[in-house]
C-alpha cells in the first residue's frame, strides 16, 4: 500500500539526532555526502559507512526501518550495477562470448552499490529525525543571505513546508479514493497500458478537485489569520545552536578528513 513508503517520513523521538539544530543537521548531511563521493577506494568509503552507522545508533531509529526504506531503490541499484559490471574496460577477469567482466568493473560496481545504499540510508536519517517544519525553518535560515539579492526565501520555505505538510494528507486521500472506486468495481490491476492510464481518471479527477478545494480553504484560513509573508514575522520556536551542534559538526569533519587521508594513503 501507499502508506508503506517511509522515505521522507518523520519519526518523533528524543535522541541526540532529534535534538540537534536542524541547520547543522543539513550541513552535516552535506558533509556526509561529501565523505561518500570523495572516497576513491573501498577503504576510503569506510569512514562514511561508519559515520552512518553511528548516526543510526545515535538516532535510535530501528534498523529494520532503514532496510525497508531501501526497498524501493533496489531496481535502480540492480540496473546501474549491471551497466557498470559489463561495460567498463580494464583488466579482464572473466570472458564469455561478448560478455566480459573486468577487475575495474567489479570494484567500481561494489563501491557504487555501497555509495548508493549509504547515501539513501544516511540522508533518510535527516528526515527521520527532523520534523518537516523544522527542516523548512532550517532551509529558510540557511538561505537567508539570498534575501539580499531579492530572492523570495521565506515564500519558498513556506511553499516547501505546505507541500511537505500535505504529502501524507494526499497519500491518505489517494488511498481513500482508490478504495472507493475499487468498491465500485474499478479495475486498476489488469489490462494494457492505455487501459490502465484510463483507469486512473476516476482517481485523478477527485484527487485534483479535493487538492484545489483544500488549497483554497488553506489560503482563506491563512488570510483570516492575517498572514502576509515573511516581513517582520517572528517565530514560536527559535532555532538556536549550542556546543552540541558544533561538536557534532566537527566530528563529521574529522571523518571527512579521514576520507581524504585514506585516499592519499591508499594511492601512495
Amino acid at each position, binding site marked *: 500500500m501507499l502508506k508503506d513508503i517511509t522515505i521522507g517520513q518523520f519519526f518523533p523521538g528524543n535522541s541526540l539526532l532529534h535534538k540537534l539544530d536542524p541547520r547543522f543537521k543539513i550541513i552535516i548531511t552535506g558533509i556526509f555526502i561529501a565523505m561518500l563521493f570523495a572516497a576513491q577506494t573501498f577503504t576510503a568509503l569506510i569512514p562514511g559507512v561508519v559515520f552512518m552507522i553511528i548516526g543510526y545508533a545515535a538516532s535510535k531509529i530501528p534498523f529494520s*526501518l532503514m532496510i*525497508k526504506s531501501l526497498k524501493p531503490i533496489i531496481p535502480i541499484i540492480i540496473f546501474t550495477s549491471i551497466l557498470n559490471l559489463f561495460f567498463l574496460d580494464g583488466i579482464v577477469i572473466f570472458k564469455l562470448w561478448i560478455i566480459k567482466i573486468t577487475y575495474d568493473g567489479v570494484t567500481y560496481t561494489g563501491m557504487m552499490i555501497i555509495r548508493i545504499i549509504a547515501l539513501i540510508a544516511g540522508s533518510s536519517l535527516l528526515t527521520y529525525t527532523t520534523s518537516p517544519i523544522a527542516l523548512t525553518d532550517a532551509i529558510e535560515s540557511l538561505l537567508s543571505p539570498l534575501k539580499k539579492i531579492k530572492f523570495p526565501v521565506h515564500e519558498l520555505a513556506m511553499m516547501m513546508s505546505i507541500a511537505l505538510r500535505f504529502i501524507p494528507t494526499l497519500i491518505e486521500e489517494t488511498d481513500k479514493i482508490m478504495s472507493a472506486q475499487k*468498491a465500485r*468495481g474499478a479495475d486498476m490491476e489488469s489490462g494494457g497500458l492505455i487501459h490502465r492510464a484510463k483507469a486512473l481518471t476516476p*482517481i485523478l479527477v477527485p484527487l485534483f*478537485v479535493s487538492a484545489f478545494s483544500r488549497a483554497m480553504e488553506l489560503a482563506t484560513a491563512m488570510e483570516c489569520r492575517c498572514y502576509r509573508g515573511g516581513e517582520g514575522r517572528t517565530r514560536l520556536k527559535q532555532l538556536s545552536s549550542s556546543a552540541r551542534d558544533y561538536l557534532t559538526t566537527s566530528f563529521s569533519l574529522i571523518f571527512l578528513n579521514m576520507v581524504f587521508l585514506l585516499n592519499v594513503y591508499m594511492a601512495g
Partner: protein
Amino acid sequence: MTAVKTENLTYTYGIGTPFEKTAVNDVNLEIEQGELVGIIGHTGSGKSTLIQHLNGLLKPTSGRILIDGADIWDKSANRRDVRFKVGLVFQYPEYQIFEDTVEKDIAFGPKNMGLSDDEIKKRVIETAEIVGLSPEILTKSPFELSGGQKRRVAIAGVMAMEPSVLILDEPVAGLDPRGREKILAQIKTYHAKKNATVLLISHSMEDVARYASKILVMNEGSVYCYEDTPIVFSKAEELAKMGLSVPQITKVFLKLKERGFDVRTDIYTIDFAIKKLLEMKN
C-alpha cells in the same frame, strides 16, 4: 440465511513499524440476510476497518470472511464480483465523484459490471428515483450540485450495482436535519425494495434506534455485542463506559424511573414513547 459471516477476523496495521496497531481483533459475526444492522462504536473502535474487510478491500491478517457462504479470499474467488455483491459507501462519498454528468457517475459501477446499455440506463433511472434525484439533474455536472445532492449521487452510484449487502459508513454525516431524514428514508426504501442486507455505521443513536433492527457494538477492535435494538439500548450504563450513549428519549425515561415514576425503560423512539405515555394516561 446467513449473508455475512466472519470467523476470527483480525487485522493489524503497519506490522513491524512503530505504528503497529491491531484495529480489528478476533471478530466473529453472523449477519442474517435482510437484516438492517446499525453499527455503533467510539472513534477508532475498528468499525471502518471491519467493513472494509467485508467487500475484500482489506485482506485480514488472519481469519476468514464468508459472503453467502463463500470465502472471499479463496483462491477461486473473484474479489471484483464480491464488490458488486457487497456495496460499500464510504464516509463523505461525494469525494469519489469524477464524471462530467450525474448519469455517467451513477453508471460507473454498473458499467464495471459489464451490463448492457439498456440495463445500465434502467438502473440509473431506478436508483436516481430511490434517492430522490429528479430526471433533469441526471444530465447536469455533479460538481454544480449542493452537498446533499452530491451525497445522494454518490450513494446512488453504489445502489445502482444492486448489491445484496449494502454497507454505509456514516452516510448522513455533515448534513442538515432534513437531508439526514431523506437519505435515511431512502436507504430504508432500498432495503425494503431489494430485500437487501444493510449495515449502517452511525454516531447518532437516534438514527440507529429508528432504523436498525439489530445493533452491532464495537469497542477497541472487538465486538462488544450484537443484539436486537431494545436489548442493546437497555445497557445504558455499559454503553456509557465505552463513551457511547443511548437515544435522548431513552435517557428521559431512565431519569423518570430514577425519580420514582413507574415507566418502562426499553423505550428508544419518540413514536413508541408517545404511544406508551398515552397508554399510561388512559
